[in-house]
């Protein structure tokens, strides 16, 4: 009997590991930014290129950075979620118009609605690299100290907003209070 127990145990351990492996999403790369200061940027505003907004200007408030582009299909799907989130008035959302032509970006917002406090132009994608962006859309939550608290790769959904982002924002606000 013992002869069969050992191979059986090895087999079960193997199956458990393989089952865990199947559940893991290889596309999910843990962000090295969580809990670390957000990378700096200083970028022109899409609708008014003379005006610039930098990360230093945004210190002292909790804000979200939503990376979007007119060429990004899932951004379109996500857009209604962003609008719904902004309507809740929990925190301002800044857009990072990633590797886009300014006219295309403006046209996209005109057609779909503009929930952003402001959208910043990252035409060649340098700021995107600085923020470790690899799949648009991406969303970051940055606290009052300028620390990245959350990163969403891929489109936001209503359940992510309700179950992750809103509770996190409440938590951040109680910390500061």
């Amino acid at each position, binding site marked *: 009997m013992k002869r069969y127990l050992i191979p059986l145990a090895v087999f079960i351990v193997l199956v458990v590991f393989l089952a865990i492996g199947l559940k893991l999403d290889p596309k999910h790369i843990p962000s*090295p930014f969580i809990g670390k200061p957000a990378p700096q940027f200083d970028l022109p505003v899409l609708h008014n290129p003379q005006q610039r907004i930098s990360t230093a200007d945004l210190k002292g408030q909790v804000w979200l950075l939503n990376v979007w582009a007119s060429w990004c299909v899932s951004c379109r799907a996500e857009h209604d979620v962003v609008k719904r989130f902004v309507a809740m008035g929990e925190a301002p959302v800044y857009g990072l118009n990633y590797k886009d032509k300014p006219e295309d970006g403006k046209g996209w917002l005109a057609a779909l609605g503009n929930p952003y406090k402001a959208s910043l132009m990252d035409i060649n994608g340098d700021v995107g*690299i600085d923020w470790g962006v690899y*799949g648009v859309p991406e969303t970051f939550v940055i606290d009052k100290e300028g620390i990245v608290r959350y990163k969403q790769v891929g489109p936001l959904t209503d359940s992510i907003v309700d179950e992750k982002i809103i509770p996190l924002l409440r938590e951040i606000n109680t910390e500061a209070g």
Partner: protein
Amino acid sequence: MWVRRGLLPVTLLLLFFVSFSSQAAIDAYQFDDPEKEALYKKLIKELRCTVCQNQDIGDSNAELAKDLRRKTYEMVSKGEDEEFVLDYMSQRYGDFVLYRPRLNTSTLMLWIGPFIILIIAVFLLIRFIRRPGDEVPFTETDKAQAEQLLEREE
């Protein structure tokens, strides 16, 4: 003759693939120093394209890979060393971007795991080979039998 005629299209087809794969990542980057160029070429083989799963950024035509090559080029041509570029990338994209992950607490098992398994395997192997109970004692009757057999040979 028919063999050769048959081989030609195959050869051409193979050449077609060869030329494509080696052309995948030729950007017109100029270096003022051959050492920098060598470093650039080394780095784009060491960095993983995070959107294409298992390709290095030198091998991929994805937009992100192009951007990361440009960034690597900018840093290398400014005279930054290998450590700097790898640090820059892993700070932004995590350890996943490095094809040779560094030794830290989360990658410890990755590095020492195979050695642990090797040690366990060697231990088990020795145990199974040298199990004392398996040794059949060589008795006097065995000896006599062996001698008898040897004599018969002669």
